[in-house]
């Protein structure tokens, strides 16, 4: 078995959640890596949609931005950004949306806007981008984010994208919401009753205690924690090729 990092594990675990036939809205960063990994391994028939307008993109290399020419050149169709958000994202045609977060709370509400006050922020973050409507409309939302008390907070400074709302019961949207939060420690899933994010799986070598310590609220832990299978050689090889930007014929 090759060596791997917690970042590798996070990307691999995210990729495994994509299946053939899934229509996946791919954002910049880890989602991009995870979605392309899925397509190179177990789910060659998953469909990558980029908010830049590329539908069924089949990038030969890992794209460095969501607007790379390779996405347009290999896509079945390229549409305008308004059409992408109105006719594709907003209309509920996306099965899986991957999102990142600068802060996330126990009900899966996400902040990517500011740390501190909106008008006089301590840290100005990039902002909402495509996330609010992906969070609302995708069939299921998978959040990929490293776990730390600074990120997993009692209360987000700003709600950029809604999960299950302030008390877990205010979600009024088309999709099922953040059904999985994949971290470098393991996987959190909303409690079926309360929607509170609950630790349900752990990566190899991580303890429940470590996950609890990496969380800024008293983390709920499932009775039966599953072990996440470590990355396979095939997964690690594909991941490495993607990171090296080696071309693959789709």
């Amino acid at each position, binding site marked *: 078995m090759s060596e791997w990092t917690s970042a590798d594990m996070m990307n691999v675990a995210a990729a495994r959640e994509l299946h053939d036939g899934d229509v996946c809205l791919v954002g910049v960063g880890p989602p991009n890596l995870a979605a392309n990994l899925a397509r190179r391994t177990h789910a060659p028939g998953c469909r990558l949609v980029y908010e830049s307008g590329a539908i069924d993109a089949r990038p030969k290399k890992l794209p*460095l*931005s*969501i607007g*790379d*020419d390779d996405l347009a050149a290999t896509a079945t169709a*390229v549409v305008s950004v308004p059409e992408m958000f109105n006719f594709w994202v907003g209309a509920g045609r996306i099965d899986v949306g991957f999102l990142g977060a600068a802060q996330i709370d126990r009900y899966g509400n996400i902040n990517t806007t500011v740390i501190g006050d909106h008008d006089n*922020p301590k840290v100005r973050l990039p902002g909402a981008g495509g996330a609010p*409507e992906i969070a609302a409309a995708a069939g299921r939302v998978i959040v990929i984010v490293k776990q730390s008390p600074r990120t997993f907070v009692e209360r987000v400074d700003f709600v950029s994208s809604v999960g299950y709302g302030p008390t877990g019961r205010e*979600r009024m949207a088309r999709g099922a919401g953040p059904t999985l939060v994949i971290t470098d420690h393991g996987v959190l899933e909303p409690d079926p009753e309360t929607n509170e994010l609950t630790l349900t799986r752990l990566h190899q070598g991580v303890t429940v205690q470590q996950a609890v310590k990496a969380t800024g609220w008293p983390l709920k832990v499932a009775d039966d924690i599953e072990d996440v299978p470590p990355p396979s050689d095939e997964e690690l090889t594909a991941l490495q090729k993607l990171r090296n930007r080696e071309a693959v014929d789709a």
Partner: protein
Amino acid sequence: MTSPVPLADAIAAHVHDGDTVALEGFTHLIPFAAAHEIARQGRRHLTLVRMTPDLVYDQLIGLGCADELVFSYGGNPGVGSLHRLRDAVENHWPHRLTVHEHSHAGLANAYSAGAARLPFAVLRGYHGTDLEEQRDIISRVTCPFTGEELAAVKAVNPDVTIIHAQLADRDGNVMLWGITGVQREAVLAAERAIVTVEEVVDEFPERTGAVILPNWVLAAVSVVPNGAWPSYAAGYSVRDNDFYQQWDAISRDRERFLAWAEENGLAPDSVGGPVEPKESTHV
């Protein structure tokens, strides 16, 4: 509008202090050369509109051209922060920047409403987010048929929109293809539109997914080969990903940023030459 004009003339004629200016292009076809000309001419008090401010607005903000920013995602894609944007918002350097922020869906629809000369657009979005607190640009409407409550965004109608495109023809019609983003809507939403193009051709080629803008909706066309660098123009150049990486270090420090601007002649009184795209980005 039929004959191309020099870019400096187009900017001088159509971009004024205090204007609301949209430079659009979603990763692809970002009109950097036009932005640099705006900086060179020392425009001030602009309200800048753009879905993804990117390096192009980081530069204009750092140079003090902008008082306000309307946007939906302000990062250096795949790299990190826009340090000049952050410095303006967090530390008011070179002065305070007021931000009005949307989601991509919201700003795309705001342009579309502007292009249709409607005062607002309806979308399914924003619900439950704190973005809704910006009541002057994001509100709600009720469907008169079903009673469902939906988001409404105020239309965006820039005084001037600037885009970069691959081609103009001899009549001054313009064609762009590849990822065409929100450019059509941004041009049609504007009072005036300026387009920089890679080249002028006798006849447009067939290109699936191309957007064509007739000359009578454009105020000026300027021929600026590689005018999108360090962004790219599909078929003409590739994205200069190295420069996007280097920008992180250039922009992180005020002095280094100012030196870069001076070197590249981007301040009105600077002595440096114009920004020169690297040859390696040509295809």
